[in-house]
């Protein structure tokens, strides 16, 4: 049997990881402001950005 590609599995794991982080009730946690910017704004874009960064690292590392 051919084994499933580890890159695909890692990316899939990222998706599974992202779902709870980007939905309620976790989204209810960031409250108030950080450095004058609403915490939820920073949180959403932060988690999103980190997911993209991790996906890029996983996907591009294999290419080399």
């Amino acid at each position, binding site marked *: 049997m051919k084994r499933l590609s580890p*890159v695909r599995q890692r990316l899939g794991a990222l*998706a599974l990881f992202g779902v709870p982080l980007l939905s309620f009730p976790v*989204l209810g946690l960031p409250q108030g402001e950080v450095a004058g910017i*609403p915490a939820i*704004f920073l949180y*959403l874009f932060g988690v999103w950005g980190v997911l993209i960064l991790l996906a890029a690292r996983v996907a591009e590392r294999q*290419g080399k």
Partner: protein
Amino acid sequence: MLSGWFVVLLSATYVGVLFAIARFGDARADAGRSIITANVYGLSLAVYCTSWTFFGSVGRATSGGLSFLTIYLGPTLMLLCVGVIIKMIRIAKAQRITSIADFIASRYGKSQLLAGLVTVIAVIGIVPYIALQLKAVAASLAVLFDQPGRTIHLWGVDSTFLVAGVLALFTILFGTRHLDATERHEGMVAAVAFESVVKLLAFVAVGVFVTYGMYGGFVDVFQRALAHPELAGLLQLDSSRAGAWASMILLSGLAIVFLPRQFQVMVVENVDESHLKRAVWLFPLYLLLINIFVLPVALGGLLHFGAQGGNPDTFVLTLPLSQGAESLALLVFIGGLSAATGMVIVETIALSTMICNDLVMPALLRSRWLQRQQQSDLSGLLIGIRRVAIALILLLGYIYFKAAGEAYALVGIGLISFAAVAQFAPALFGGMYWKQGTRAGALAGLLCGFSVWLYTLLLPSFAKSGWIDSSFVEHGLFGIDWLRAQALFGLSGLDEISHCLWWSMLANIGAYIAVSLHSRPDALEAGQAERFVDVFRHAQRVPDSRLWRGNASLSELATLLERFLGPQRARQQLAGYARTRRVSDWRSLPADAEFVHFAETELAGAIGSASARAMVSSVTREEDLGLEEVLDILDEATQVRAHSRELEAKQQALEAATAELREANERLRELDRMKDDFISTVTHELRTPLTSIRALSEMLFDDPKVELEQRRRFLGIIVSETERLTRLINQILDMAKLESGRAEWTTGEVNVGDVVREAGEALGPLYREKGVHLSIDIAEGLPVVLADRDRLMQVVVNLLSNAVKFVAPASGSVSVVVAREKNLLQVSVADNGPGLTAEECGVIFEKFRQGGNTMTDKPQGTGLGLPISRQIVEYFGGKLWVESAPGAGATFIFTVPLAKAAPEA
């Protein structure tokens, strides 16, 4: 106030640039040097961001705060499921699939009915979405000419109609430029990628302008908004909308795959699977960048214009205009135009393919007219149908726009379209992973899901626009309360999208599974199910050819190809196929199942799998295999695969066993050789003392007159040689017992210091006799070890007697040290004798090997003492070794592990 001519000229120039890019892309594709790189592919996916994103996100943000982000988070998560998308691409390539309708129809037995249904759902779901793009362009023109809310006329023609017309013309030139309908549209993909860059630049430019030009950056905008209580609410998430948040993410995640334009760019236009690796992060990054300024722009607009400050959907235009930044407004207009044209082009190409292949062709194939045109080339007809379909879709969009106008039906239309295409999910995902899913199940699921969508989402949106009576929304159909369209069965408290998604998915999935389980697939379906679900396994061995039996004529099939592909392309494909079968001329190919399969796949690329199937069966005399037989063939294929895997596993096991056996045999031979060596050595060792005993005895026997002195000496030698012989035999027996594991051990707690001291005392006379100095150094408070006291004594005595043998008389000295080394007890016996060479250090532990030169010196031992000692020490879990250099004496060291209970000292 901008001049109308200037705007028109600018738009025309922009469209011209797009056209040039598309031409360039097509030319490069024709030359075989594709310009579709991973980056271009990733950017082309951003056709997802339509004018609904470009203008509408800001509008949504002014009412829903951050909830607009769900539309972009869903696709990010969906793209991470690369495995699913790669499987889709693989299937689409193997089956020459050209649209989502084709994909679903092909999986369920190339059903024309299913293809038609999917096409109808897609068209009904998407036409309003196209209308939205037209409206966006019209609205942005109106803002640009400072006549918001009025229809702009250019040369007496409604500008929106003009836009629709230009877009139709453009799409026709773009998407159906080739007379051959099967090629990918690489030029279009390149142009769409370019448009993605333009709209991103435009949006970021206006974002920076508003955030940093009109205000003092993010913090400033947010702080000012927080000062207004009605705006502060937009900066928080309302946890009571948790359900809506989750359903939006799900809906947009499905839309990124199932919107016809997304399926087109992601699956159909994919040239290389590895491009997906770039897209998986590049596209989400694009989404992030285009959204980062949405909230600041929305808040900036609300702050600047106040609560009644005009349409928030056009803030991106009105804000720069309010500051007199006309060139920025023009850039934004071009960005919005990019977003709209990109969507319209790809969407109408995708829909026109579906309409042509899955609605018009099935009807045409049945018509008398086509049957009369037996021999004519129909590829031109195909292109013609598609062009008409494109014009028709845009016309429908325009009519919808005219009818809906500013009505409610247009505002929420993006999500309504998402909910429509989400209905494809159960049949498509089910078809990819579940072989039991049947055509009847897919039909039932789609119909149920679509009906629920129609009743709970589309019709209520019409009702809200006042086109139809809204009583079914307020009071339920026929006045039945639990049939209220947006509170079905009393389910209220959800927003309309979540409500529709919940009920339609329940109906869709439920019907799909229930009907699938209660129906049997026909032969064709079973075969297709196998090919879809096991696409990764079928990559090499294709059982396709075995699933078709019948008679076909080569020339008839070739004619069919020529009719639909055009003569030139058909000949090209036939020649290519002949090469793969290593035949120089395709006319000499056999008209076998494989050829029929080739012809059908080629046709499927042009007219869809369902129509291709119908055409091929019209010119071949096919034997009906029946479900049982197909299942048998598939089972057989599965079994053959399973068998070959088993065989492989067995072969590996066999090889491993063989290697083990060889190793064991090797060991046995070695042992055998060692046994032979042992016996010959033992015999030799026994014969030496025997020979001397016999020689002396014979001398005494033969010559009775030997002097008493002489006789006494001889008898002394005989006695000592006999003793030696006895010792030798005892040691050989001992060795044999130890090796066979039959030795008796009486293990107990032993104080090693005592043992060494006792051994020193026992050998004291021997040392004194030879004048060798013996020093014994025993560390204080040594713990006891678990060992056999007598055996340990045997080892120490052996080492001490060896030492005394090899040192020089009078000047020799031997020192014994007993000390603790971590969890070991170490005894070392050092002498100042001649020492051993490195080679000797290794061999003296072998049986019958002795120190010194055995050829010249008289042997001083049996050669079994050290091997026996080593066996004993190793039995206790310790080690025995020697450290020595020639001329520097030798140190024999052995260790014994401490008893576990020994206290740490």
